[in-house]
C-alpha cells in the first residue's frame, strides 16, 4: 500500500468519524429536546396530583395514574422526592397501593438482577415504598456487594420496622468504611429497641474483632441502657475499645462513669486520654477539675487542647483555672490556656464538638 493510499484511508476514516460526531451532537440535542417536551408535562402532572393527594384534595388513583405515565426512574425519583413531605400513614397507603402497580412489581423483580443499576433502582424504590413482604428482598439488598445498592437499601429502615432487616444492617455495620458506618448508624438509630438488645449481646463478647465498631456505634446512640456495658469496656485491652468507652461515658453523668474516666485520664494511649478529657468536660463533675487542670501539662498537644476545652465547660471555676494557668510557669499549658481563652463562643462550641 502506498503512502497516498494510506492517506486516503486515514482521511476517509477521520472524515466519517468527524461527521458521526457532529451528527451525534445534533441528534443528542434533538433527542433531549423531544424527550423533555414529552416528559415534562407528565412530570408536572404527576407532581400536581401528588401535591393534591397530599392535601387530601384528590384520590390516590390519580397519583398512581400519574406515576404510571412516567418512565420508571422518573417515577422513583418522584416517590423519593415526595416521601419526605407526606406524613407516614398516608405514605403507607400509597406504598400499599403501589404493590399492585405493574411497574412497581417489575421494579421489585430487579432485586435479583445481575446488573447493579437495576438493583439500585429496586433499592431506591423499596427505600420509600417497601411493604412487610419486601423484607427478604431488602435483606438481600442490604447485603449487596455494590455500595450504592446497600446504602440505598438501608434507607428503608427510615420507614420500616423489621427485626431481620435491622439485624442484617447491624451485622453489616462493622465491616463497612467509616463514612458508610456513620450512615448506617444514623439509619439504625430509628430501630432503637431492637438495636439496643442486640448491642447488649455483642458488647459482651470481649474477643470479638468487631467490638470497637459496635462500641463506636453505641457511642452514637448515647443510650442509658448501654452505660454499664460501656463502663465495663473502659478496662478492655484494646485501646480502640477504650477510646470508644471514654467517648461514650461523657453522655452518662454517673459516679461509675466518673470513676472510669478518672482511670482513663491516666491511660497509656494519648487518644484515650484526650477522649477522657472531652468526656470529663461533658460531665463537668467538680471533683475532677484538678485532674483536668493537670492534663493541661500532658505531653501531647491534643490532650492539652481537650483538657482546656473541657475546663471551659466547668463554668466560672474552669475559666478561672485557665486564667491562672495562662499566667503560670508551664509554657505548654500556658499556650493552650491562651488559645482557649482567645476563642469566641461559637468557635469554642465548634472546637468542642
Amino acid at each position, binding site marked *: 500500500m*502506498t*503512502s*497516498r493510499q*494510506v*492517506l486516503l484511508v*486515514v*482521511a476517509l476514516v*477521520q472524515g466519517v*468519524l*468527524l461527521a458521526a*460526531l*457532529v451528527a*451525534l*451532537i445534533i441528534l*443528542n*440535542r434533538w433527542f433531549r429536546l423531544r424527550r423533555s417536551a414529552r416528559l415534562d408535562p407528565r412530570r408536572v402532572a404527576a407532581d400536581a396530583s401528588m401535591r393534591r393527594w397530599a392535601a387530601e384534595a384528590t384520590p390516590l388513583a390519580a397519583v398512581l395514574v400519574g406515576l404510571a405515565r412516567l418512565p420508571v426512574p422518573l417515577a422513583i425519583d418522584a416517590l*423519593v422526592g415526595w416521601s*419526605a413531605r407526606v406524613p407516614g400513614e398516608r405514605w403507607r397507603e400509597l406504598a400499599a397501593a403501589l404493590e399492585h402497580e405493574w411497574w412497581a412489581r417489575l421494579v421489585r423483580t430487579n432485586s435479583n438482577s445481575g446488573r447493579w*443499576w437495576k438493583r*439500585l433502582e429496586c433499592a*431506591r424504590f423499596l427505600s420509600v415504598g417497601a411493604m412487610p413482604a419486601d423484607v427478604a428482598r431488602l435483606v438481600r439488598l442490604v447485603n449487596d456487594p455494590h*455500595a*450504592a445498592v446497600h*446504602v*440505598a437499601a438501608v*434507607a428503608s429502615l427510615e420507614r420500616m420496622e423489621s427485626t431481620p432487616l435491622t439485624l442484617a444492617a447491624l451485622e453489616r455495620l462493622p465491616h*463497612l*468504611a*467509616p*463514612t*458508610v458506618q*456513620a*450512615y448506617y*448508624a*444514623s*439509619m439504625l438509630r430509628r430501630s432503637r429497641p431492637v438495636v439496643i438488645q442486640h448491642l447488649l449481646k455483642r458488647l459482651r463478647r470481649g474477643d470479638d474483632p468487631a467490638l470497637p465498631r459496635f462500641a463506636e456505634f453505641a457511642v*452514637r446512640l448515647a443510650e442509658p441502657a448501654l452505660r454499664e456495658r460501656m463502663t465495663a469496656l473502659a478496662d478492655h485491652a484494646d485501646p480502640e475499645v477504650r477510646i470508644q468507652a471514654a467517648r461514650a461515658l461523657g453522655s452518662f453523668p454517673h459516679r461509675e462513669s466518673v470513676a472510669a474516666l478518672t482511670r482513663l485520664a491516666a491511660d497509656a494511649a494519648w487518644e484515650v486520654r484526650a477522649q477522657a478529657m472531652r468526656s470529663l468536660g461533658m460531665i463537668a463533675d467538680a471533683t475532677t477539675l484538678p485532674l483536668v487542670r493537670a492534663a493541661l501539662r500532658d505531653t501531647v*498537644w491534643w490532650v492539652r487542647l481537650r483538657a482546656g476545652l473541657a475546663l471551659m465547660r466547668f463554668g466560672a471555676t474552669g475559666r478561672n483555672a485557665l486564667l491562672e494557668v495562662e499566667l503560670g510557669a508551664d509554657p505548654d499549658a500556658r*499556650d*493552650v490556656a*491562651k*488559645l482557649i481563652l*482567645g*476563642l*469566641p463562643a*461559637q*468557635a469554642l462550641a*465548634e*472546637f468542642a464538638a
Partner: protein
Amino acid sequence: MSIFGGVVTGTDLAILVYFLALNSFYALLLLLSIPEIWEQTRLAEDDDFQRLMQSDALPPITMLVPAYNESATIEASVTAMLTLEYRSYEVVVVNDGSKDDTIEQLRHAFDLYEVPRIYPETIPTRPLRAVYRSRTRSRLLVLDKENGGKADSLNAAINASRFPLVIAVDADTLIEPDALLRLTRPFLLGREIAAVGGTVRVANNCIVKDGRVTDARVPRRLLPGVQVVEYLRAFLFGRLGWNRLGGNLIISGAFGLFRKDYVTAIGGYRTTSVVEDLDLVIRMHRYLRAHKVRYVMPFIPDPVAWTEVPESAKILARQRERWHRGLIAAMWEYKGMLFNPRYGRVGVLAMPFYAFGEMLAPLIEVLGYVVTVLGLSAGMVNLSFALLFILVAWGYGMLLSIWAVVLEEVSFRRYRRFGDLLLLLLYASLENFGYRQRTVWWRLKAFVTVWKRGHVWGDMTRKGFATPQS
C-alpha cells in the same frame, strides 16, 4: 535512496508511529471513560443528597486556600466557600505574604481578629505572622505568613486544619454549592479512598453572582476558549479513563480532596516542587504502594469548581512552561518508579505514559515538523506522507477534542446555548492550527529552563469575574 534519505524517512515513519500510538492511547482512555462517565452520572443522579445532609455520616473537611495577590477575587471566593452545602467543614485561608491588599480585604470583609497561634507544626513552614478568626464566620481561619510559595501555604494550612480530610482549593476558584457533598460520594460508597479529584472548568466569560457561576458561557476569545476544550479533554476523558486503568497521577491542585493522615505521612506538599499537585500525588502513590496500603484515587466528574484561565499569551506561556517543567522534574525525580512493577499500574502504565507520552511529546512533535519539512524540501518525503503525518498528529487530536465536547454534551451539559456548543466545536477544530504549535513551543522551552533556572513561579494577573448586568 541515500543514507541521509533513509534516516529522514525512517525518523518520519517512527514519529508517525509514535503519534499513532499516543493518540490511540488517548482513544483508549476515551473509550474507557465512556462506561465510567455513565456509571458516575448514574450514581450522581441517584444520590439522595438531602438524606445524606441530614445524616451525620459525612466526614468533616478542611478547605485549604492559599492566596497570593488575590485581592480582586478573594472576598467573593471565600464567601462562596463559606456557604457551601456541607454540614461540617472549615476554611483555612493562607495569605502567602501577598504584595497587594489581600489580607486587608479579608480583614475588612470577614471582621477578623487575631488569636494566639498554637497548634503542632506537623510540617515545617515559613514563619507565621498572625492567625485570625472571624467574628462573623466561625468556620473561617486566616493565616498570614511570610511568602513561601503555594506548597508552603498549603502545608501551613494543613498544620492548622482540624479535620481528617483536606481539600486544596485555589483562592480564585469558585466551588459549586454541592461540590463538597458530591466529592465525598466515594467515601460513602465505601472504597479505600486516599484522594478524590473533581472537575475544574473555565470561568472566563461565565456570569458570576455572589461567588457562584450562575450562567456558564464559553469565552468568545480564542485563547481562553480553546482552554475550555483542553480542560474538558483533560477532565472528562483523560482522568476518567485513568480511573479504569487505576493510575490517576494528577488530582488538580485547584480542587482535590485528600486524606490528611496520608498527606502528613509523606511530609505534605514539597516546597521545592514546581507543580506541587503532581508531585504530591506521585509521592502518595509511592508511599501507599511501598507500605502495601490498599487505596484508590478516583476522579469524579460531577463536583465542579470554576477557575479563571489566562487570557494573555504571555501568562499562558508562563503557566504551560511551568506545568511542563514540573512534569519533567517529577518524572526525573521519581524515575525509579518508571516500569517498576512494585508500583503496580502506576509504575508500569501511568508513569511511562506521562514520561513518554506527555513529557517527550513536544520534543518529538517538533522533531516531526523539522524532519518533515526537511524531507519535503529535499524531496525525500512525498507530500502524501507529510499530509499523513499532519492527519495522524493533528486530525486525530482534533477528533479527540470533539469527542470531549460530545462527552460534555451527553453527560453534564453545562453550556446550554446552541451558540456555545458551536463555539466549543469551533475551538476544538481550531486548536490544532496555531494554538497547538504555540503550546508545543512553550513546553519545549521548559526543557531548557528546567536545567538553567530551577523552579520559579509565574505571576497570574487576575481580572476578577463578570457579574450579572442589573
